């Protein structure tokens, strides 16, 4: 089977690439487009390390074929910062030391951004449930949740 042509908008830029029909979006991002920020933790949709935003919705890029992205918009961790300016959730993850090994961090940041895009004032419970599909084996989650809620407060213009 010949390689498939995919036209998508990735982090705001129109992108054309070729992929194998069975290749996942995660593998295409990493291997065809050199966007290696999205990680493969489990490859089965359990860990969330490969999280991307597809047409405004949080999805696991390991559970999508790359060809399914044709005609759609994908936002990856590489699109979170604006130039050298970190997104507030990135900045707050640093301030709260909400990471240790860092492998889950891109997925958590993308998932947290998707949450705050939709719900600028999540409760702690809402944030914990929203992020239940992002596994972190280092932090125990507490610092992550504090960082997300602090980022939300900052984005609302409230000083924490």
């Amino acid at each position, binding site marked *: *089977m010949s390689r*498939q042509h995919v036209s998508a908008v990735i982090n705001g830029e129109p992108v054309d690439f070729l992929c*194998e*029909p*069975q290749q*996942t979006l995660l593998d295409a991002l990493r291997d065809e487009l050199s966007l290696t920020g999205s990680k493969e933790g489990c*490859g*089965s*949709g*359990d860990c*969330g390390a490969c*999280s991307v935003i*597809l047409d405004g*919705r*949080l*999805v*696991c890029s*390991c*559970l*999508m*074929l790359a*060809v*399914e992205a*044709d005609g759609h918009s994908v936002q990856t961790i590489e699109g979170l910062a604006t130039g050298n300016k970190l997104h507030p959730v990135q900045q707050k993850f640093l301030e709260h030391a909400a990471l240790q090994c860092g492998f889950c961090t891109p997925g958590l940041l993308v*998932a947290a951004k*998707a*949450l705050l895009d939709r719900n600028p004032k999540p409760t702690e419970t809402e944030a914990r*449930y*929203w*992020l*239940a*599909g*992002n596994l972190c084996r280092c932090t125990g989650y507490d610092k992550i949740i504090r960082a997300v809620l602090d980022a939300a407060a900052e984005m609302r213009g409230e000083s924490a």
Partner: protein
Amino acid sequence: MATLTYQAPTTVQDAVRILAGAGGVAKVLAGGTDLLVQLRSGRMKPDLIVDTKKIPGLIGIREVDGGFVIGAATPGAVIGECEPLAKAWPGVVEAANLIGSTQVQGRASLAGNLCNASPAADSVPALIAAKAICVIVGPKGRREAPVESIIIGPGRTSLERDEIVTEFHLPKRPPRSADAYLRFIPRTEMDIAVVGAGISVTLDAGGVCRDARVSLGAVAPTPLLVPEAAAALIGRKLDQAALDALDAAARKACKPIDDKRGTIDYRIKVAGVLARRAAAIAFERAGERR
């Protein structure tokens, strides 16, 4: 795997034609949250994948004659955001939204949950309790089938290999009707049902149950419709006698397995408990709709 062909037709007729003409293993793709896992683990080695999401109507929800039509590939997140649907069918919506994480909700669909044919599929008991009908299109045309007729065993459905589920129909509700779905898992998120219970009821003005459907998941090779459990409710208010009869009928219908999620005895006991609790929620919701 090297020979996998991906097709994304834009009409149901094309999708059926492609499936009918396929040699080897052909799989229908909706959200892919089960299919991709099977593909990547090597458990499934399809020669052809037919993506249904580019077919108009396969994603989306519309109200028709007071009922609802849910496109087969509509993601759980879209189902959860449809307020009129959540108002009319809260049990169906809460069941669909229990499937997986936020990420999985962004893709996972009712047709995928049904056709993956897991005995523990969360949305299926709720759809069965709701008397949902699925619309199926194949080479011979369109047919309708009750959801409870689709799963015939773990991983097996009654669909022909060239048939596609295109939509689900939920009927118009009489006054004082409501549904509920409860799932038991040992934690609060990200797990597979030990037992699931879906119940839909219609009450009269005095709070007496006039119609009911009860469905159980993860306690048999397929999700079960349990008419004896519904009969325990019909003609009664939700008093202790009704709850006891419901509990007993639900337990009696179970034919579960022992596995890492629960023993046979435990699943049977929990089925009775969940049926009672789901009935209490459904009755309360229905009672509020005067």
